[in-house]
């Protein structure tokens, strides 16, 4: 460390609060624009290592007690660096900057709130350049794969606005990339034992496609928490070998299940309801319940106080199935799981869902495939199983075909590539290839009322259909 700074740099100053009376200036915060951005530059020649550029007034030109805009942009280069690491690097900014004594740095991205203490000035702080240099020194010490780093600090109001607008686009693109991340892309999943006091055998497995049951922890949160506190309640789970892609069974998860549940469970399938489902803690936002009468699943959230079609309210089911148990027929989930492409993938996804409270349905409507939206009842359509059955028949719910399949004689016809022309039928949900080992099309009767009709059963089909249009013969 060749550089000498007029302030101490140490992790012990982390969490230091600069009170209003002790502050020299406030930067960003609730009154002024502020942001921080780390950008990976592919061409190392475009980064001048150690360089600091300041656009706008320097610290000593600022009025004591004043509020100013603040933008901090860092350009980094290194052989091992790639754009995907930008968010990870940027997160460290909030870790490193508070190491400076007298420098309060809160929040992140476009919400940063910084205070510089009077003591810092008194002890000899003269320029933002010193702040930038200390920050870059910390980065390079801690993350040696950063080969070159330069900083651009901005305090000019107009320029901050301009660069902030550009940064917003970068954050947005980053968020889109993060949201597009799936279980297949991750090397590790994470476990969470935060609620084990209430659910001692719960094995909460958090993956990119599956938030925690309480809805509070995403895969990204767990990754960050595990890094900060390796002994804490969040830890990596090596995926291991994938035993079943469709149902989401991984050797690593199974091993962890044994360990976390104290031997109670040794298999967990992440994307199923009826086969070795995920354990349910006491904290889940929504519970799903299988209704054998209609061979379909209903979901209810904590805010819905009344009984569901199976006669039980949220609280009773939560009491029965919660506590960290793996209960066939019940499954606690976080609301975000509805939006996951892996949602009940093992059972055919949304086609098995028949009931949701109205408020919850409205909230997650976007998650429901368009052709299923009218087929899922709410309390306005059905409050008991009989009503639900009627509703499902009326809207021709995909599960209705299953009932028919069991009642009627099996007349199987292998499906060929060509779509048969028959009675009017709603569009089929879009399938992904290889995801449906067995699929049954609903039985349909000609609208004339004559008995008969046909039933199609596709077994081990591997087809991709965007739309099937069935028309009655003229």
């Amino acid at each position: 460390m060749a550089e000498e700074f007029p302030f101490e740099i140490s992790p012990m100053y982390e969490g230091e609060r600069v009170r209003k009376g002790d502050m020299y200036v406030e930067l960003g915060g609730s009154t002024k624009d502020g942001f921080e951005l780390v950008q990976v530059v592919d061409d190392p020649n475009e980064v001048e290592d150690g360089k600091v550029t300041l656009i706008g007034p320097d610290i000593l030109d600022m009025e004591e007690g004043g509020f100013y805009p603040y933008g901090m942009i860092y350009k980094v280069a290194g052989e091992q660096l790639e754009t995907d690491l930008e968010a990870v690097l940027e997160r460290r900014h909030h870790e490193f900057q508070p190491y400076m004594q007298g420098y309060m740095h809160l929040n992140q991205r476009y919400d940063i709130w910084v205070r510089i203490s009077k003591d810092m000035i008194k002890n000899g702080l003269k320029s933002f350049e010193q702040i930038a240099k200390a920050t870059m020194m910390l980065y390079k010490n801690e993350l040696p794969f950063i080969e070159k780093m330069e900083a651009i600090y901005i305090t000019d109001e107009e320029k901050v606005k301009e660069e902030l607008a550009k940064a917003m686009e970068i954050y947005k693109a980053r968020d889109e990339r993060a949201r597009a991340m799936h279980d297949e892309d991750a090397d590790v999943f994470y476990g969470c034992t935060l609620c084990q006091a209430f659910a001692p055998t719960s094995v909460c497995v958090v993956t990119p496609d599956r938030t925690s049951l309480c809805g509070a922890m995403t895969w990204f949160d767990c990754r960050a928490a595990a890094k900060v506190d390796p002994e804490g309640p969040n830890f990596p789970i090596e995926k291991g070998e994938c035993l079943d892609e469709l149902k989401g069974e991984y050797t690593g998860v199974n091993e962890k299940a044994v360990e976390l549940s104290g031997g109670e469970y040794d298999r967990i399938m992440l994307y199923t309801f009826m086969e070795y489902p995920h354990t349910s803690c006491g904290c889940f936002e929504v519970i799903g319940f299988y209704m054998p009468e209609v061979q379909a699943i209903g979901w209810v959230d904590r805010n819905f106080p009344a009984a569901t079609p199976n006669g039980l309210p949220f609280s009773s089911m939560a009491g029965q199935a919660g506590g960290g148990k793996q209960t066939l027929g019940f499954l606690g989930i976080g609301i975000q799981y509805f939006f996951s492409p892996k949602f009940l993938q093992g059972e055919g996804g949304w086609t098995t869902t028949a009931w949701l409270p109205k408020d919850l349905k409205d909230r997650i409507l976007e998650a429901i495939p368009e052709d299923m939206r009218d087929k899922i009842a709410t309390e306005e359509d059905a409050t008991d199983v009989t009503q639900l059955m009627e509703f499902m028949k009326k809207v021709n719910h995909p599960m209705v075909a299953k009932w028919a399949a069991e009642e009627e004689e099996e007349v199987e016809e292998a499906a060929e590539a060509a779509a048969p022309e028959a009675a009017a039928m709603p569009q089929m949900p879009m399938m992904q290839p290889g995801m449906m080992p067995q699929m049954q099309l609903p039985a349909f009767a000609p609208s004339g009322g004559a008995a008969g009709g046909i039933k199609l059963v596709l077994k081990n089909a591997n087809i991709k259909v965007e739309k099937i249009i069935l028309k009655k013969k003229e």
Partner: protein
Amino acid sequence: MTTIVISGKGGTGKTNIAALLVRILSENKLVLAIDADPDTNLADALGFPVTKTVGDIREGFLDEKDELAPELDKQSYFESRVMSIIEEADRFDIIAMGRPEGPGCYCYANNILRAVIEKLEGNYEMVVIDTEAGLEHLSRRTVRDIDLLLVVSDVSKRGLDTADRIRALANELNIRVKRIAVIANRVRNEHDREKLKNMAEKMNLELIGFIPFDEELAALDLDGLPLTQLKDDSPAFEAVKDLVERLDLN
């Protein structure tokens, strides 16, 4: 850092005592006042009404968690929200915990909150917490080690009974409390003193002070005025000051 928790039966005037303590202690030390009783208002008594509470932030966080950017550092986000609701007086800061939890899951939010509060407390020489007799925030571990648990009683057997229960609860919760003591408030005469002293002795409670009934304080209370207006020579003020000196808190 020294942590003092004020608790006691409702209506004993514990918030007034807490406010006087903050006022007196902050003459020499930097104090963080935590209002952890949703029923009362320490901040009002100190003349710095707070508009937002930690509870509001926690609820807001639980409501908006699904919309937050996926890679956002939630702890730092939460921390900055908490920091933004702190009221800063000259020599002390105030933060209000606000309403208790609703029916949802608070494991994660409270876990973050614990870390944030712990970090915040490290900035002060003294932390004074006004909390209800149920000690909810202590059971949630948003507060860790306590140097002094001061239970305020009025001139009543029930006030002492509550003190007894709080002591039992504190032991049950497994929080480290260095000292638990009782002070009696609104004491009118020698007869009150003697009676309380005897009862406390029988219950094995350490009764360490008497705060006399104070006309001036009662008048401020009646008008909802802050106790920062209470004169330095009023009997209640002097009694609390005397207590601070005897306990060597200055």
